[in-house]
């Protein structure tokens, strides 16, 4: 059991970051990471030792996140808490820019958002990102190119970005 601690524990901050950037809801993201870690523990013995632990754990988290996003889409629009941006003082210019960037990121289709985060932020190789998304490398490359282009156009004002919304609790 020591190998799982050594291999997985250092990944937890990155798993939280990936989940929160995808869901934009701190509680929901941490719940997802919790479920991911439970599954990682129960399936650890099934893992082929030659597979990279990071890509393997990210795959579990990614599948949970996509299920969650699909369920949310079926239930209709759900306005999520923008706490990554809200946690920062809005007076500072860099933070305003970061808020805009994260709002624009949220406008991307989930597959594009995911690949941008996996490759651009988490630093996964194209091959590992393809494994996590369960698609060929060519698909990862074209998603990445489209995601970057679209993000640029959103920030450039060529595409409209939804204004920040408040979360409503019924």
């Amino acid at each position, binding site marked *: 059991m020591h190998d799982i601690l050594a291999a997985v524990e250092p990944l937890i901050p*990155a798993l*939280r970051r990936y989940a929160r*950037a995808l869901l934009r809801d701190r509680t929901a993201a941490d719940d997802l990471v919790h479920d991911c870690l439970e599954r990682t523990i129960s399936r650890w013995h099934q893992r082929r030792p030659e597979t990279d632990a990071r890509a393997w754990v990210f795959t579990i988290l990614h599948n949970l996140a996509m299920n969650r996003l699909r369920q949310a889409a079926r239930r209709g629009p759900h306005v999520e808490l923008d706490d990554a941006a809200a946690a920062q003082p809005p007076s500072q210019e860099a933070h305003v820019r970061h808020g805009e960037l994260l709002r624009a990121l949220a406008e991307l289709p989930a597959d594009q958002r995911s690949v941008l985060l996996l490759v651009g932020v988490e630093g996964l190789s194209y091959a590992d990102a393809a494994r996590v998304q369960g698609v060929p490398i060519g698909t990862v490359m074209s998603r990445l190119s489209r995601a970057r282009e679209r993000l640029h156009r959103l920030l450039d004002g060529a595409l409209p970005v939804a204004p920040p919304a408040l979360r409503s609790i019924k």
Partner: protein
Amino acid sequence: MTARPITEDDLQAHVDQVLDPARRAEVEDYLARHPDVARRVAGQIRQRDELRAALAPIAEEPVPAELGLARLLDARRDRRAHRAGRAWGARPAWQLAIAAAVLLGLGGVGGWSLRGAPAPSSGIAALAQEATDSYRVYTPDRAHPVELRAAEQPELVRWVSNQLQHPVAIPDLTAAGYRFMGGRVVATAHGPAGLLMYDDDHGTRMVVLIRPMAIERDTAMALHASGPVRGYSWAARGIGYSVVAAAPAATLHPLADEIRRQTAAG
């Protein structure tokens, strides 16, 4: 010169700094001759760096205790030990009788020590089991999950309080994102209990079971799990509470704390 044409994939790989040196030199040479493309690529590099900077604070946060891997591993070990300990208790009586008879027949004087850990017959463990059973029966019911709806709260409160012979208040969990759906009286081996149901914006349902306790009348909050269904149970001043949902312990714990706070104040 028969240089391979520069592809969009090459440009992405340049942004991600994963080109081998020879190809990188070719891409840089191309970009020097195509300032429009160079501007676009530079913009994408800047965008990647900004995205990293915007999200970096999340990875710098201290990891919540509920996500500590060592703690999750311990909890799993405990659950397994608990299940192993209960295996005998879960067997039908006739199997136990045969086992005892066999051991006695073998002259094993230890035959009567088979008591082991009996199935929970009362106390907090029984309450937790009853709440889990009620959760399994009532939350999947789409048509009639509750008998009296939230709008009929005064009648529900009267009904449950009369049956329990104890004034019962409905905890308000709207601040935690859970809406009160309604409730009913359910039968348990230890008399009537009040079952309250809540749900959140995602449609996740949660139940709270409340009944008087004959034993273990003041007990600290404890986590229990049965597959994906988890719960927190405790007792205060003779009344037992069990909060159950198919949700991570990290989600349930603050809800249980809030219910305990409100019921203790009431």
